[in-house]
Each structure stands twice: as structure tokens, then as C-alpha cells.
């Protein structure tokens, strides 16, 4: 029993000494000194529960997979249409919207609308500052 305690104490002291030594050795190593400075956790949560979606997003592997998916979708979108064959799922033509197209009554419920700069400029011209009018 005494031997075991002596052995464990020796091991413990050795570990402490090596710890201090390694810590001093890497005191000027920026990759170790700033190890956790940009850490937004790479998912220590999933040490216990790896089923939550939130947690899965932290997984670098999954992140890279989702990136690849995104990239492949982008690639598909950029493919030229052949023989009138349309990629209905991925092509979205952006419709030009003018101020006349906007239903002001249902404005609060409407989706965000992009107004063409020329239209926007004319609208601003029409409503000049009240101070200049005076």
C-alpha cells in the first residue's frame, strides 16, 4: 500500500514537472498560447448528446459536408440550360419590381421588395424635404 502511494506520488510529481516544463517550452508558441482564443466550441456538448441539431452544426465534419452540399447546389444552379430543359427547382428569375407593383395596403405582410435605383431616385425627388419646400 505504501509502495502504491509512493509510486502514485512520484508519477504525480513527474506529471506536474513535465507539465510545467512543456508549458514553459511552449510559452512562445503562438499556436498553443492562442489555442482557445477563437474557440466557439467545436462541440464539447456532443461528448454526451450528439443528437441535437444545434450541436451537429458545431461538428466540423458535418459543417464541411453541408458546405459541400451548398457548393454542389450552387454548381447546379450555374449549369446552362440545354434544349429547353429547365431546372425548375433551382432556377429563380428575379422579377424587376417598380413602385407601381407594390400594394401599399398589404405592405406590412408583403415580402421584402427591391426597388430599382432609378425608381427610388424618382420617388425621392417627388417627396422633397419639407424644409426646402418652406
Amino acid at each position, binding site marked *: *500500500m505504501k509502495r*502504491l*502511494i509512493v*509510486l*502514485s*506520488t512520484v*508519477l*504525480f510529481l*513527474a*506529471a*506536474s514537472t*513535465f*507539465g*510545467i516544463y*512543456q*508549458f514553459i517550452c*511552449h510559452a512562445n*508558441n503562438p*499556436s*498553443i498560447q492562442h*489555442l*482557445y482564443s477563437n*474557440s*466557439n*466550441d*467545436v*462541440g*464539447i*456538448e*456532443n*461528448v*454526451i*448528446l*450528439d443528437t441535437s441539431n*444545434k*450541436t451537429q452544426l*458545431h*461538428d*466540423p*465534419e458535418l459543417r464541411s459536408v453541408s458546405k459541400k452540399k451548398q457548393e454542389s447546389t450552387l454548381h447546379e444552379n450555374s449549369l446552362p440550360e440545354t434544349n429547353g430543359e429547365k431546372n425548375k427547382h433551382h432556377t429563380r428569375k428575379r422579377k424587376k419590381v417598380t413602385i407601381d407593383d407594390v400594394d401599399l395596403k398589404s405592405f406590412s405582410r408583403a415580402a421584402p421588395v427591391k426597388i430599382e435605383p432609378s425608381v427610388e431616385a424618382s420617388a425621392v425627388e417627388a417627396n422633397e424635404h419639407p424644409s426646402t419646400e418652406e
Partner: protein
Amino acid sequence: MLTSKKFYQQIGTYLIQLIFWVPIIFFSLLLIRNTLPYFDLKQHHPFIQERLPLFNISLYAICFYTHIAAGMFCIASALFQFSSTILKRQTKLHVWSGRIYVLVVLLIGAPTGMFMAFFAKGSIMEKGLFMFMAIAWLYSTARGLQTILDKNVLAHKQWMIRSYALAMTAVTFRIYHILFFMADWGHLENYEVSLWISVLGNLLFAEILIYKSAKNYLKTFLT
């Protein structure tokens, strides 16, 4: 009348024990299960990814793998320690799992934990907390061993409660971490708060248990 009161008291005690032990067993087994994939020795695991430069230090990598292996044995063997049924009917199981626990903590768990504490995440306070944990874990386990060899069962029980409370910080830390994560806490503050609550909370809980059972509480530190 008296017997029915005793009966209800017994049921109450069983229920409390069930509520206490079922989550502990569940989360302990879950922790062991989630530690197993690390032994593919690949670096894609989140914990390793975060500390990738550290794994270039071979001693750190060795300490990490031995520490998690030790932790698995330690948590698994500790599950047999506090059951009075096992102690009465399967004394050998209690003794052997206890031996495994003590050996693993004294020779692997605490020393590797101490080494890794120097590179722990967080400020100097968190590093200090990990070092304190390693020292306290080693000391309480050694005292637990010494007291049982002196046939002082009560003191043995008290020291092993302290040791187990420290071992279980690995489990409680992750529970708090998940809870705060769900509450959308920032990562670093979540980590630090979870760490402090788990260590201090577990130690406080252990001391309350000991205080309730001990006649002279302060004496428990000396025996």
C-alpha cells in the same frame, strides 16, 4: 400504525435513491459510450480539433488517451461502489471494482489530469481549478485506500464519497454545459460557469452528505 409509517419511509428512501442513481448511471454510461469513438485515434473529433496543436506534443496525446481510458474504467468501476446490496451480497465485486478504481485514479487518472491541466481551456483560474481537482482526487482516493486498509470503514466511506464526487465532475460538467448551451449562453462563459458549478457543486454535495452522517464533521478530514 408504526409499521405503515416505516413502510412509507422505506418507499420514500427507495424513490429518492432511484431518482438520484438512475440519472447518474445513465449519464455515466453515456459518457463511456461517447468516449469510445476517440480510440479510432483519428483527429476529426471535436475535442481534438479544438486542441490540434496540443496533439503535436506527443506527451499530451499520450496523456489524453490514457486519461480518457482511465476515466472510462474509473466511472464504470465506481458504479459498483455505493450499492449496499452489492457490498453485502457481492463483496468481492465491491473489492475488485474498488481496486480497479483506486489503481486507475492513483496511477493514471490524477497524474495525466495534472499534466493536461497546464493546457486546459480557460483562464489561469480554470487551469488552477483543474490542478486542484487532480490533487484533491489523488489525495482523497489515497486516503480512501489507507483508511480501508486500517479497517476504518466510516472514514473510508467519507473519503471515497469525496473521490467519487470529483470523478463525477466529468459527467456533471457536461450536463451543465448542455443546459447552458440550450439556454444560448456564449461558449466560453458557458464553459467556465459549467466547470466551476460542477466542481464546487459536487464537492459541496459530497460535504453535505458527509456532514449529515458524521458526528464530528471536522474530524472527518483528519481520520
